[in-house]
Each structure stands twice: as structure tokens, then as C-alpha cells.
């Protein structure tokens, strides 16, 4: 097992280098430079000014040298300084925004799990029933509804007409210096709509997956055997079937790890939440190379770690996967 994990980790290094190399290349192939925002169609920016800025950002050096320089810094865990006009370290900018995106996505993932698993199980057990159909319609509605549209509807209803919930942002100005509970409740009120909206959209995938897993499992012989033994239906489903049907779901959760960081441009924009999605989008539009690369590296590392965790959990469950390499 340790050899297996060791091998998998050793494989991650060249993969990571490959990912960053391709990202770096593709990013630089896109037309436009970070200095464009400052100088494009700006009458005050003369050719000398442009050259001065390019030297300042190190854009005058050839691409391979820039990549090697970047790689050298990253090995020392330094993601560099953002090209944006604030000149702040990339890590500072990411660190500032990661907690909020992480919180929202984790909460929404939690909500998805809490809602999707029962929906999936219920639908499978009562396959083709009226409830199954209604739930199917419900989750697909969530899947098909554009996030921005749903968000606006909820904001108009709860924010403007009823006035129960704040419309956007993360905290009320008056709650900033109040006690812990007031701040906590204020935060919760602000997070409610974004979490609901982002969870609603993700419900379909997981619940359908759960449903099909469950359907497959309850047709297996051992379930028939269990029923034949006279076990209560709730025990058959809740204990024997569920355990096996959940196995692939755990793997899926491993893959959703990078998604926690990626964030969502759309709901962060609509709800004015200063998260990673918003920042990454801005970085791409501004051609802020260090910030783009920094976010990508973190995303890549998380994806690889997620894959690793999934593989390990598979290997733990099913020894055939481990020995598979030796055959």
C-alpha cells in the first residue's frame, strides 16, 4: 500500500509541471498583455512608458526564461507578485479570498449531500412512482435554471419585497464591531441565499447518481437474499444497500475538492461576494499572469490530491486495484 501511495505521489510531480507548463503557454498565447489595461488607447501612455512598464513586469524576457523563473519561485513556495496595479503578493490575494469561497462551497456541498442522498435513495426505492417523478422534475429544474435568474428572483422576493434578507455582500456595516452572535447571525443571513442558489444547481447531478447506484445495488442477489431472510425493508435498504451504494459517492466527493476552491464567477458576481471566482475572472481579463498561475497551481494541486484520495479510498476498499499494477 505504501509503495502504491508513494508511486502515485511521485507521479504527481511531473504531472504538476506539465499542467503548469501548458497553462503558462496557453495563457501567453492569448492576445494581450497585463499592461494593456494601463496603456491601451490611453493618450498619456507613450511608447517609452509602455516599454518601461514591460520591463517592470519582466515581460521583455523570452517565454522559457519567464517560465523557469516562475518555476524557481514556486518551488520556494513563492507565487510571485500580482501584475494588477495593487502589486500585492499573489498568495496574500488568494489567502484573503479563499476562506469565503471555501465556506460557501463547503456549505453548499454539505447541503447538496444532505438533500441529494435522501432524494436519490427515495427515488430509487420508489422507482417510477409519482414521488420519483416529482423529485426528478424538481432536481432537473434546479439543474436547468440559470443561476443568475434564480438569484435575482430570490433577491427581489426576500430582499426587496419582504425585506427579510440582505440582497448582497457579506456583512452589514453595523454588524462589524458587534458581538460574536450578532456577527454570526449577520453572516448567516448574508450567506443563506448564495448557498441555496449554488446548492440548487448542483442537486441534480449527485441525486441522479445516487439514484442509479441505489437501483443497481438493490437488484443484486444479496439484497434479494436479505429480503428473503425476512429482514425489515428499512434494514435492507438503510444498512445493506446504502453502504454499497455510497461507495462511489465517496469517490465523487474526492473529485469535488478542487471545486471548493474554484468558486463560481456567476453567483459571486451577482451576490457581490469577494471570492476566488470573481478574482480569477478578473485576473484572466486583466492578463494578470502571476495571479492566474497562482490560482491554477492551487487548483491543480487540489485536483491531484483529490484524485489521490479517491484512488487511496478505492484501493482500501478493493485490493484488486492495488495489485493491478503488478499483473
Amino acid at each position, binding site marked *: 500500500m505504501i509503495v502504491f501511495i508513494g508511486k502515485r505521489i511521485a507521479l504527481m510531480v511531473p504531472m504538476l509541471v506539465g499542467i503548469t507548463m501548458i497553462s503558462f503557454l496557453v495563457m501567453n498565447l492569448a492576445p494581450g498583455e497585463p499592461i494593456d489595461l494601463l496603456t491601451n*488607447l490611453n493618450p498619456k501612455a507613450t511608447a*517609452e512608458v509602455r516599454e518601461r512598464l514591460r520591463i517592470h513586469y519582466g515581460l521583455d524576457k523570452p517565454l522559457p526564461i519567464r517560465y523557469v523563473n516562475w518555476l524557481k519561485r514556486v518551488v520556494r513556495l513563492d507565487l510571485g507578485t500580482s501584475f494588477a496595479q495593487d502589486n500585492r503578493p499573489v498568495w496574500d490575494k488568494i489567502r484573503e479570498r479563499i476562506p469565503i469561497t471555501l465556506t460557501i462551497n463547503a456549505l453548499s456541498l454539505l447541503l447538496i449531500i444532505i438533500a441529494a442522498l435522501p432524494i436519490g435513495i427515495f427515488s430509487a426505492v420508489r422507482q417510477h412512482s409519482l414521488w420519483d417523478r416529482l423529485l426528478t422534475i424538481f432536481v432537473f429544474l434546479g439543474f436547468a435554471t440559470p443561476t443568475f435568474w434564480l438569484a435575482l428572483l430570490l433577491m427581489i422576493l426576500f430582499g426587496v419585497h419582504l425585506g427579510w434578507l440582505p*440582497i448582497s455582500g457579506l456583512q452589514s456595516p453595523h454588524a462589524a464591531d458587534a458581538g460574536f452572535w450578532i456577527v454570526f447571525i449577520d453572516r448567516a443571513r448574508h450567506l443563506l441565499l448564495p448557498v441555496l442558489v449554488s446548492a440548487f444547481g448542483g442537486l441534480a447531478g449527485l441525486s441522479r447518481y445516487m439514484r442509479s447506484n441505489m437501483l443497481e445495488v438493490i437488484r443484486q442477489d444479496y439484497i434479494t437474499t436479505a429480503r428473503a431472510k425476512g429482514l425489515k425493508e428499512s434494514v435492507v435498504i438503510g444498512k445493506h444497500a446504502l453502504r454499497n451504494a455510497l461507495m462511489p459517492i465517496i469517490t465523487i466527493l474526492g473529485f469535488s475538492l478542487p471545486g471548493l476552491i474554484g468558486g463560481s464567477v456567476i453567483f459571486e458576481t451577482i451576490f457581490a461576494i469577494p471570492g476566488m471566482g470573481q478574482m480569477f475572472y478578473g485576473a484572466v481579463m486583466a492578463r494578470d499572469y502571476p495571479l492566474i498561475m497562482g490560482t491554477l497551481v492551487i487548483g491543480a494541486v487540489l485536483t491531484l490530491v483529490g484524485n489521490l484520495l479517491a484512488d487511496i479510498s478505492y484501493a482500501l476498499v478493493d485490493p484488486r486495484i492495488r495489485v493491478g499494477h503488478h499483473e
Partner: protein
Amino acid sequence: MKKKVLSALTGIVLFVLIAACGQTPEAETKAKTAHSSAETPAGKIAEPVYGDTIVVGSIGDASNLIPLLASDSPSHQIAGYIYNGLVRYDKNLKLEGELAESWEISADGLTITFHLRRDVHWHDGSPFTADDVLFTYRTIIDPKTPTAYAGDFEQVKEARVLDPYTFQVTYAVPFAPALSSWGLAILPKHLLEGQDITKSPLSRQPVGTGPFCFSQWLGGEKIELVANHDYFEGRPYIDRYRYRIIPDTATMFLELKAGNLDWMGLTPIQYDRQTDGKKFAEQFNKYRYLSFSYTYLGYNLLNPLFQDKRVRQALSYAINKQEIIDGVLLGYGQVATGPYKPDTWFYHVPEKTYLYDPEKAKKLLQDAGWTDRDNDGLLDKDGRPFSFTLMTNQGNALRAQAAVIIQRRLQEIGIEMKIRIIEWSAFINEFIDKKKFEAVILGWTTGQDPDIYDIWHSSKTDAKELNFISFTNPEVDLLLEKGRHTFDQQERQQYYARFQEILAEEQPYTFLYVPESLPIIASRFHGVEPAPAGISHNFIKWHVPQALQKYTQ
């Protein structure tokens, strides 16, 4: 946890700033009568009182509050409240002194001597002197400073401090935009000297001389400023300025509707259709004034299709500009006749204005040899049909809509125009800079000085320069040169009037429209005074009557 660190930080900053920006705790409890409009006895104007907060909505966050290092409008908007320049434009767009009390221009037009105010202090209490001005100038021309604004200052031959309150600059040749260039924000020498300006904490916690002091910045969320009680033009009546970042315009509008925003810029449709209810009329005041920009249809003059002046004139006659304004801006704009804003001193109505006239357009095209010889509905000449592609940038719906309206009008006189919309960076780098376009719809932001040498002079037609349509006209060159080298306003006016006549005759652009700015402001703010310069020129005089104050400290 992040919040704790931040509030601790701002605590420190506030402590440092206390000298000038200490909030004397006003203990009066403020009765909050929600949004009643009958706050004063009829006809009686209330004496302004201090207090309240204004909450402003913005699409984007600021990037850097050292204005030299920033080129985005949120940064400059915020920095504008924190810093001062030596000069500024008053509400009627005339230059007046700000940190400079007065100035003299030598007879040969080469030397400007500024006499500075003696009663100005930085927000940390240090006095402001001519050394700060010299320091700012040296920083901007320092090659190590990554700034996009060095251009104007590279013309300076010598800058000197004569005494703590006198500053002198000498130019190699007289340079008319020089005076207005000194409106740049003056930076505090004592806090920046000997440091790498790109790493300065002032980027995030600025210290200036202006009417408001920096208080707090939560990235992507909000920026807060507090009134400078020692401001040399008097303490602003509004105590707090809160700048909220809401990247989505629909969300911002909902926040406004819910009463959480006091000031935002509306789109024409919001202005016209969505804010006309009784509730809005009670809670908000709407303003409209011409913005400092215009939108145009530019032709690539290197393209044989557009080299004949009659063709360009015909296109200008064929496009109904009022129709675009009515359809796209819902009427909130004016027909542009040239590159200048209609209410400036250098604006001139040219003899030739291109009112919609398809018959005249057809006649001109015929004169230029364009007729439909093969009866396919398209004009042709030498076997080539009149067909071209118009490009514009993605993300500006107004331009795309204008393009569609133009397309239909041109089709009516037998011209085929295809529309291509491209992402901004790619558009500029791949097409504009390389001159690989036939026609474009773009806009320019106009300045308060008429000098637009960089856009129209024939020396500016190289790759990556602003005269990308390749307009060359010896008389225009001469006029632009003369115009920027004299300080005599009347003389300049004559040069720029003639310049506008030539542009009207040549039609290198079809000037389309000057849009209006459409701000909405909560009606509890009194003293708002629209002027050619906009509405924020007298912001420090805005005030909220006691009974209407909404946010207490």
C-alpha cells in the same frame, strides 16, 4: 478571523490619522424620520448640518490608492476625495487653483510658477510644502515608477522649489496642456521618500490632503472614508463616504431599490422605465448631464473603400444618429458633431452637420462611382460590391445595438455591413494595433483640455498609436501643433474651431453620440448642483438635514 485582523489594522491607521481626522463624537441622537420629504418648513432653506453617511455603489473595486500607479476609474474616484492637485477644473470646467493659490506663466510661455497655499496639512498632520510637489514630479518621471501618466511630464525641462511655498517648472517649448497636467494628485514626500513606491503601504492606506481621510478597505467589498475635519476648504458636511463594490448592475439596482444605496449611475432603461414610480420620486432625485465621452464609427483610411471623402460623407448622411440615440440610449444623449463635448469652451458647431439624408448619401456614392450595375441590391464599383465588416468590442451592449441600427440603414442604400464583436484585448492587439480592420465602433473619453494631438496628428499613425485610422492632413497637423503650444485661450479656440471644420468636411469618423450620465441620489442629500463638470464638484457642500439623517455614528 480575517475581520479581526482588518479591524485591528484600521484601528492603528485611525490612531495615526487622529490628528486630522479624529471624529469628535457627536452625541446628539438623530431622530430618524424615514424618508419624509417634508423636512423643512415650506420655503425655508435649512442651515446645513454635519453628519450621516453616503453609500455609493460601484461595479469595480479600486486597485491602488496611489493615483500614479492606478489607471482604473474606481481608484481615481476614491483617490479624488483623498488627494488634491495644484489645480483643478471648477464646475464650469475652468482651471482654478486647488493646492496652488495662484500661478504665473512667463511671457515666453515656458515657465510656470505656482504659489502654494500655506494652510494645508497632510492627514497625518505634517504640513504640505513645495517639496511634496517636487517629490511627486520626480517620482512620476522616475523610470522605476510603473505609471501610465509620465507622458505630460517628460516635456518638463526643469522643476525647482524656490521656497517652501513656491514651485516652478520650465518647459522646452510652450505646452498648453501643461497647466492642467498639474492637477495630478500630490503625494506626501515624508511618507514615500526613499521607498519603493510599488510596495508602499500607502497603496492600501493612503494619506493625502483632501476633504476625506482613508478609513477602511475590505477588498472586493467596500472602501470607507471619513470627513477631514481640518480640510482647508472647510469640513465636509457628510461624515462618511462608503463605497460598496457590487459587480452586477442588476444587483446594484436592487440594493438601491431596497434603500441600501444612496448613489449609483443608472442605465437609460433604469432611468426611463424602472425608476419612475411614486416611491422613487420621493426617495431619490435623478440627474442627467452630458458625459465626458463620445462614440464614433471610425474608418480605416488605408482601405481603398474609404479613401474617397465622398464615400465617408455619404455614410455619415446614411446613418440616422438621432435614431441611434432614441433607440439605444432612449434619448439620453446628444448627436456628436466632432470630438469635443458640446458644453466646453473649445466646442464649435461645424457648418457641415450630417443630418439623416439617404438621398444625399446615394447621390454622393453615385458621384464617387458606386452604382448597382449587376442589380443584386448592392452598390458596386470596378466589379467589387460595397461590403465591409464593422468591428467592436465585447461587453458594450450599446455599441453592438448601434451597429445593428447602422447595418439596416446602410443596407437601405445598398451597402452590406457585417458585424464582428471581439473581446477587448484581442480586439485591440490583433486588429486595432495591426490596423487589420475596415471600420470600428469605439468611444473616446474626452478631456477638459482640447489637445488631442495623440489621436489626430499624422505622426501618431504607427502601430499601437492612437491615430489607428491613419488620418493625415497637413493643416490639421499644423493646427494641433499651434494649439498645444500657446496658452492664449482665444487663439486656441480659433485653431480648434478650424480643426473641427476640417474633421466635419473629411469625416474620418462618423461621430455618433455623446451619452448622458444618469446618476440617481437619495433625496435626503441636499445641495447637489448639476453643472457642466457633473455633480460631484461641490460634494463637500452636500448635507443632510438633521431629521433625515439615516446613519448615526
